[in-house]
């Protein structure tokens, strides 16, 4: 073995020009994209299947059999886009976090990378939101395929885009909370207890104002962040259907996002630092 007492300065101690924590964050994101990209078909199958069946059974089968009124698919479609965004976001942070913090410890290598601990959490949320966005985006071609047409207004395109991103981030932030506060041995129970109410109080299958004669359920639904994503998208895509005002949906969604992120970050920090 050669042992030479010469420089150069070790990289660890050398001033690496322009190397900041954000570049470490990007390197971690690149790792996540690399792993998902390699299994992209599996990922797609994973995120598409549930909304695909919901769309098919509720939008196509029930309408064709006459159990749902014609035009119901117009109300349903924006809600299912919201559902895909929020649920995929949630699952994409919660499950990996639970596994990486307990069984695999995989997150340790990232927590030991030169970036603030919060940066690791932000990367998790951003990456999960990217997955969620893809899941929501593929709903559009699937909608066209199954339903024949989907409600779409070009003028609202940008706002729809923004709301889908917001919904994806909201779901990811909820997952951050679940993934960091719930002990691993409880995650199955928690998923059952959280996912089902979340899915069915998020106004994905009906407009929120139509619940006025079912007051308690309307109030419960108003507490679900997903409601504002569903209603926001509905207002943008099918404005003639009664809906919560779009600006209010954006506002509440942003406030929810901030609150959920703060709570999730606290949970993440608690798990990451002893």
């Amino acid at each position, binding site marked *: *073995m*050669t*042992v*030479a*007492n*010469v*420089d*150069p*300065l*070790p*990289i*660890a*101690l050398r001033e*690496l020009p322009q*190397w900041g*924590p954000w*570049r*470490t964050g990007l*390197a*971690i994101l*690149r*790792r996540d994209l*690399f*792993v998902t990209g390699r299994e992209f078909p599996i990922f797609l199958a994973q995120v598409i299947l549930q909304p695909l069946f919901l769309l098919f059974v509720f939008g196509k089968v029930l309408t064709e059999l006459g159990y749902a009124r014609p035009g119901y698919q117009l109300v349903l479609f924006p809600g299912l886009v919201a559902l895909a965004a929020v649920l995929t976001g949630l699952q994409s942070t919660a499950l990996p976090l639970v596994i990486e913090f307990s069984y*695999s*410890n*995989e*997150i*340790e*290598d*990232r*927590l*030991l*990378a*030169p*970036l*603030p*601990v919060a940066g690791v959490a932000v990367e998790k949320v951003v990456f999960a939101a990217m997955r969620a966005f893809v899941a929501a985006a593929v709903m559009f071609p699937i909608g066209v395929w199954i339903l024949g047409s989907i409600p779409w207004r070009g003028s609202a395109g940008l706002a729809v885009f923004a709301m889908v991103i917001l919904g994806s981030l909201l779901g990811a932030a909820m997952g951050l909370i679940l993934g960091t506060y719930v002990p691993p041995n409880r995650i199955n129970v928690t998923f059952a207890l959280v996912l089902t109410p979340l899915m069915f109080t998020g106004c994905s299958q009906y407009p929120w104002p139509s619940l006025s004669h079912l007051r308690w359920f309307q109030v419960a639904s108003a507490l679900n962040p997903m409601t504002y994503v569903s209603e926001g998208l509905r207002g943008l895509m099918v404005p003639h259907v009664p809906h919560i005002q779009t600006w209010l949906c954006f506002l509440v969604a942003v406030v929810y996002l901030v609150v959920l992120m703060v709570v999730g970050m606290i949970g993440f920090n608690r798990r*990451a*630092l*002893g």
Partner: protein
Amino acid sequence: MPSVPVRRCTVSTNVSEESSRGMSTAPHKIGVVAPSGRAIGRQGSGPAVEVVGLAKRYPKAPVDSLAGVSFEVAQGEVFGFLGPNGAGKSTTIGILTTRILPTRGRAIVAGVDVVADPVGARRVLGVVPQQNNLDRSLSVRQNLLFHASYHGVPRAERTRLADALLDQFGLADRPDGRPDDFSGGQIQRMMIARALMHAPAVLFLDEPSTGLDPAARLFLWEKVAELQEAGTTVVITTHDMDEAATLSDRVAIIDHGTLLALDTPAALVRGMASERTLDCAVDPGPTTDAEALGAAIGALPGVRETERLDDPTTGAWRLRIYVEGEAAGFVAPVAQAISASGGTLTDARLGEPNLEDVFIHLTGRALR
């Protein structure tokens, strides 16, 4: 159980507030070429690790897990932390590697304060954890490459380094295998190779040989020796006496969150040089009273201490008797005392003190 006098001593280390302050601002200097041909950190004249009054109390815990520990690790040193499970070793390593926040005290690694600048500290330290935390979605080689990318090692350099380290750690034949398909020893090597990818100034190995077979353990020891030769500072925790004695330049013995002793293995053992040991296996009779027997042996002239180190699996009595002078001369009187108590001496071994005896002396109990 015979009452065993326990000598507890606290060794004060030579760290003063003044010197530590001076140290923290010491400039970084050159590195040396690691076995891989790569520069491994070695900063200026200051110590590689400097810990002053470090303490940790976990929330809701009644006592400190770490109760004000101070020590220094010199550059290029292999520093061993020896203690039983729960002694505070992993807490110390956790704090030094920025994963645990201390309740009080200071910890400096390669000139960087780990509490004030955890991001900076992570640049200069490498960690090989106790449990496999390799990225299971990536191949062995990708594990190394992505780790280096997190640390900003340029692409060309990380490729070269990964190949060199895979070769050096005997992993070059299956670089594309997934970590799950490898043995415990190989996983250990992968984690060391990964930790070296960003050329840390100080490498922390947390119980590296736990669960390894003897061959894998020897390979690990060789690699640690090579790293040291190349100038990397290594901090290693272990509850294995042989490992501590073989690998470490200096050993810190820690128990109940307190540093009990800190010196070279030879010096620690030398501190007990005036003593010899006599290990006796005793088959107790129905009337044998442990306490009375301990007292009877303890009363023999020249006997300094008696410790009972029973084998919990068989329930057999085992006494370790520390004596002054030649231990052989004590066999007869001890046997006599045992038979007077109604028991039988079934085995007697004469021993020179080793690191384990030092540990037992300091903590009052056997490590394993």
